[in-house]
């Protein structure tokens, strides 16, 4: 009976955590995939994996961190599998200048659009590397393992991404 009660109580905890953290997981995956369906799939995959390993977690915080990380891994994996869209080539070919104005009198919308354009100018690997490092705080080695490359290569990709972003943000800030 106790086992039964425990089993029914756990979905409750998962649902509560999902309500609280779902938006964050989804957005983290969305930044990686730039595709809402893939982001949703990644979170669902992570949730189910976490559910099947629910006895391994000692608390809500550990569970949140774990799901967040697994969701990101799933997101990267899903993007890799759907690479047929040749996103990298498209981004490189469709070079878009940020809509800078000499006055730098931007509305918030224009600013966000330009920031989004800056991110879009990054290749898939550059964007993923930058996000995993700058936003998610992963170690270089972890990124290398996940993206199936070397740590030195991750460093190079990261530096290249940052240089590209800086160029665009200089324009945004009206700096030379």
């Amino acid at each position, binding site marked *: 009976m106790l*086992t*039964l009660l425990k*089993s*029914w109580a*756990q*979905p*409750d905890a*998962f*649902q*509560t955590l*999902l*309500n*609280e*953290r*779902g*938006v*964050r997981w*989804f*957005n983290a995956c*969305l*930044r990686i995939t730039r595709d*809402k369906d893939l982001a*949703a799939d990644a*979170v*669902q995959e992570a*949730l*189910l994996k976490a*559910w*099947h390993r629910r006895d391994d977690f*000692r*608390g*809500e*915080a550990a569970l*949140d*961190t774990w799901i967040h990380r697994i969701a990101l891994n799933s997101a990267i994996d899903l993007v890799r599998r759907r690479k047929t869209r040749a996103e990298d080539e498209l981004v490189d070919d469709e070079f878009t200048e940020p809509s800078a104005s000499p006055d730098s009198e931007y509305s*918030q*919308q224009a600013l*966000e659009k330009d*920031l*989004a354009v*800056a*991110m879009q100018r990054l290749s898939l690997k550059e964007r993923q590397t930058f*996000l995993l*490092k*700058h*936003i*998610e*705080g992963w*170690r*270089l080695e972890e990124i290398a393992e996940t993206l199936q490359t070397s*740590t030195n290569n991750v*460093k190079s990709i*990261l*530096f290249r991404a*940052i240089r590209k*972003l*800086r160029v*665009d*943000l200089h324009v945004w*800030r009206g700096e030379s």
Partner: protein
Amino acid sequence: MISDDDLILYYYRDGLDANERARIGAALSAHPELAQRLQTLVARLDAVSAMPEVPVPAEVQDRWRAALDGAAQQDAPRETRGARKSFSQVRWPLAAAAAVAIVALTLVFQTVLKPAPELTAEVTPPEVPSGSDASAYERGLKWHLASTEQQLASLESASPEERERLVETIIAQNRLYALAAERAGQPQLARVLRAFAPVLESVAKDDESSEGGIAQLNFELRVMQGRLGAAADASSTPRSTTL
């Protein structure tokens, strides 16, 4: 000569050996213009990272819940297989009634746990957050502070590797909330959250200074939680307390 690449690795606390870190740390202390360069660089990268959050579509949330319910229901029969086998053979009408009841309970469960509208509300530009966005953000921040307190409490029993890993996780989460605070038009809060980073770094070391660091962090966390609680009480609405 210190390149921007070195500066950025220093900021990430990754990819540099101890000597390089010490050299860059000393240079940053000695040359304010270098520290300014790093600060400007990080501010730009933070700006590009602080993209507005996208709400989770309602149908996606429903799909996640359904998937979890499905997994839970698959597990439940496994745990009670022995007892239920004979029960269903002899008393199938009761079993059917129980199944109906489970479906009904699931529906009630889903309805009750449906997130409050503000959780899926569109996030507005940072300068003018709407009440509902501020509420969702505030709940997230409270959750982060409580979770940080929990994680700090677990540091004592953690191995040095686990300890370092935990602290890094907290620093990364902190950075996210500092970004969110800036987006919510709360630069002071963002500064306080960023000020946690050096204290957390000292905590990661697991030496004598770390105990003081943990005590200081716990104190700061409680002060912030108290302020958030007081602010919520002052402007308490049913929406700010629902989940």
